Each structure stands twice: as C-alpha cells, then as structure tokens.
C-alpha cells in the first residue's frame, strides 16, 4: 500500500505533464475533426475530395517510402563496414556518424540549399563540366527533398544497425565458415536475417521521421512540394483553418501509429533470436 503510494507520487509530476500537455491537447485536436457542423466525417470528406490535399498525402508517403528504402540499403552496408572495422577505426566512424545526427535538422537541410542552389556547388560543377542546360534549377523539386531526407536519416540507420550487427555472435559466423559457407552465403543466410529486427526498428524511425518532417520540405520543397508537415503549418498559421490543420494532424497520427504498431508486430514475429 505504502509502496504503491510512493510509486505513484514520485511519478506523478511527469505523468501529469504528459497527460495535461500531450494526451489531452492531442485528443482534443483529434476530437475536433469529428465535431464539424456539417457532420462527423465532413472534414475528412473535404480532405479527400481535394485533389491538392490528396496529392500532398500521396507525395508525403512517396517521399517517406523512398527515403526509408534508400536509407535502409545505404545504412545497412555502411553499418556492416563500421561493425567489422578494426577497433580504432570503428570508434572514429561512429563519431563521424554521430556528429551529423547531433547537428540540427535546420542546419543539415540548409546545407543542401548551398549544394543544390542556382549558384550552388553542384551547379558550378555542372557549368564547369560544360553540361548542356546548366545551371539547372534543382531546388523545390521532389528530388531535392528526397536527397536531403536521405542525408538526414542515413546516420540514424547506421547507428541503429551497428549495434545490431555487432551483437551477432562470432561463433555463429565461424561455425558457418568452418562448415564451408561462402562469404556471400554467410551474408545472405546469417547476417542479413539476424539483422532484420534491427532493420525494422530503423525503418520505422526513418519512415515516421520523414513522414512528419517539416524543416526539410519547407526549405527544399517550398510551396511547390508541399508535404503533410508543411501543409499542417500552412493550414494552421497562414490560412488560419484550424479544422483543416486538425484533420491533417489526425491523419498524421493515425498513419504514424499504425506503422509503428504494424512494424513492431512484424519485428516480433520475424526475430529469429526470440525465445
């Protein structure tokens, strides 16, 4: 009894903060989407009837999926090299991956403005090479958003997978090698399957992160490449259409939470080391 009281009271300040400042406000936002005068589903009907908003949702899903797939592939092979690198190199490579991760999203997206801008380094190079039509306008395209997004999330994927790959027991690999498995067979049949749960965790982080991002699509996509995050901001702060913003919010929450739940379930089922 006393213990129960102590546990509750010690955790109560943090619990109250999360309930009052997160659970209640977010629930209120979600509830507001069903409270329209025109009927409970009118706002969702309006969202999906607008070709523009459907396109924004579709574009966001597209960017998030492409970013996730590329980040998984690039991150996996890089993490593999990092996890096999000799001691001192390993820590240097980890530090070099942590550094961009700790540098803010705004700074890292801004860097691509300098690279991809009209006077940017990429265009200077293309002009110098004498490419036809250079300088190109590369900003405010879906491509520029995707590149910056991949750039943003590869370090996260690398760091997630380095830990997973290092945890694969040496003797499993040695056993396979001593039984005559080739390097590529070891890779395909042992290392990759054992890394799948880690890949899923990383993929969820990357997908939800890119699906809900704001700074990158704002800086590199602008109004031409509006995504869910920038649409939410535009609805709420430019158009003062709070019902519309709440609808965008609700769709983002539903997509994010369903992906997280679905993927954790799949990860649990696929984990070959689970007992």
């Amino acid at each position: 009894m006393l213990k129960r009281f102590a546990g509750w009271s010690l955790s109560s300040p943090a619990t109250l903060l999360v309930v009052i400042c997160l659970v209640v406000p977010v629930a209120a936002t979600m509830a507001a989407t069903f409270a329209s005068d025109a009927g409970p589903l009118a706002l969702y009907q309006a969202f999906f009837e607008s070709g523009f908003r459907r396109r924004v949702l579709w574009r966001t899903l597209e960017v998030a999926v492409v970013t996730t797939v590329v980040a998984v592939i690039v991150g996996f092979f890089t993490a593999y090299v990092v996890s096999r690198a000799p001691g001192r190199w390993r820590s240097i490579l980890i530090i070099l991956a942590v550094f961009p991760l700790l540098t803010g999203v705004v700074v890292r997206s801004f860097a691509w403005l300098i690279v991809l801008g009209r006077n940017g380094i990429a265009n200077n190079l293309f002009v110098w090479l004498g490419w036809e039509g250079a300088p190109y306008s590369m900003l405010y395209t879906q491509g520029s958003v995707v590149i910056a997004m991949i750039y943003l999330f590869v370090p996260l994927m690398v760091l997630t997978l380095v830990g997973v790959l290092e945890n694969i027991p040496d003797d499993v690999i040695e056993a396979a090698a001593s039984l005559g498995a080739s390097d590529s067979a070891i890779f395909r049949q042992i290392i990759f399957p054992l890394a799948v749960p880690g890949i899923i965790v990383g993929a969820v982080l990357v997908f939800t992160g890119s699906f809900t991002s704001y700074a990158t699509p704002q800086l590199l996509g602008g109004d031409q490449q509006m995504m869910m995050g920038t649409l939410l901001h535009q609805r709420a702060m430019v158009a003062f259409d709070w019902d519309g913003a709440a609808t965008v919010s609700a769709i983002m929450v539903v997509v994010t939470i369903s992906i997280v739940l679905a993927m954790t379930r799949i990860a649990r089922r696929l984990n070959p080391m689970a007992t």
Partner: protein
Amino acid sequence: MTQRLSPALIAFAVLVYLFLLGPLVIVIGAALSDTTFLTFPPQGLSLRWFEKIFEMSAFRRTIVTSLQLAFASTLLALVIGIPAAYALNRFRITLPSWLSTLFVLPVLVPEIVLGFSLLRSIQVGAGLPVLWTLLLGHTLIVLPYCVRVVSASLASFDFTIEEAAISLGCSPVKTFFTVVLPNVQSGVIAAFILAFITSINDVSVSLFLTGPGVSTLPIQILAHVEQFFDPVVASVSVLLMFLTVAVMVVVERTLGLTFLAK
C-alpha cells in the same frame, strides 16, 4: 569478427561518409566567404559573417532564448523525470505497465502535431504566455530521453545497497541523494546532453509556439533563409556545429564516446 571486408564495400562506405560530411564542410566554407551571397568554394576569406550574427538583434535574442529554454526544459525534465524513472524501476510491480508507455508518447506522437495541439489547447485555449508554453512543450519532448536513459542506468543498479543504507538509519531522501543518484550519474549526464541537444535543435514544436518578440534560433534561421540568401545563416550553423563538438568532447571526457553508439 575476423571476416575480411571486400574493397567494394569499403569504397562504398567511404562514399557514404563523404556524402554525410561533405555538406557540413561546405557550410563551414560558405560561412567564411567574403561575398554577400552564399557560395562555395568561398571567395575571399573573412570572419565578417560571424560578427554579423552578433550585430543582428534577432539572432542575438533568439540565441539567448534558445539557450535559456534548453537549460530550463532539460532541468525541469530531469527534476520530474528522475523520480519517475526511479519509481518505474523501484516499484515496478505496483505500477501499471502503461505508465512507462506514457513516457514514450512524446516520441510516438508526431512532434508537429504536438506543437499544433499545444497551440490550440494550451496557448490559445488556456491562455498561457508564449514563453511558458514553449517551456512546457520543450520539457515534454525531452522528457522521454530523461526517463529512458536514467531508467537504463537504474536497471543495473542494485537496490539492496539502498536498503542497506536505510536499514542502517539513513533517511530515504538522504539515501536517494547520497547512494542512488551518484550510482546513476553517467545516465543523468547522458540524459542531460541528449535533452539539451534535442531542445536546442527543435523546430516542429517551437514552430507553432513562438510568438511576437519570442522566437528560438532554429525558427529564426528558417525565417531568415526565406528572405535572405546571405552567409549569416551559414555562420550561425557553424556556431551550432561548434556547440555539437563541445558536447561531444564533454561526452568523451565523462562517458567515453562509444556510449553514444548505444
């Protein structure tokens, strides 16, 4: 881990690292340029864009606000997060399992939705001043780091030491500060650093909560980039990178850098 790496894989990793670090080097170069527009390689070296940061009151003000906000929200999150983490570990059996899920919610709910909802319910609905909603919002987004990292340290803490101190007559409060807390020191430092960095870099929550006269550095950078394309933002970015390096040095000195890879 005796397997050899193929040269193709190594070359691939080198390219990936060039991709990861190249843009940051370019930002540093652009910050040193003597031109009035952003360019790389820099044309003529100068530090004038660094001086310019401190001449512009908007940047000066937001740097101060961001630092204050990061310190205040991190401390507040630790003050409420450490007891919560302690309770979750010490009284695990008597507390429902959804409680620990509750503290992960700020990471699970999209930050931008949280920002908008705080604006709707707390800032406009409850009429709280801008700075207070910012503080609450930032505390909320850094709280999961504090609870989780401190929890991880407490998970390996042997609570029989605490019982020994109490049975020898030490008061529970004194025991907490002299026995429990020193044992999870590294977790607290790590939580502080992660929380501080998260707060100072935050965009999505601050975006909705900044008001007239009160803004944070990342929001000011976004606003500036939309109007001007001069190197001042590059030099602010370099300052932020210096801050990151400083943080990494602190981590290195206190915990060892491999700590971050976990």
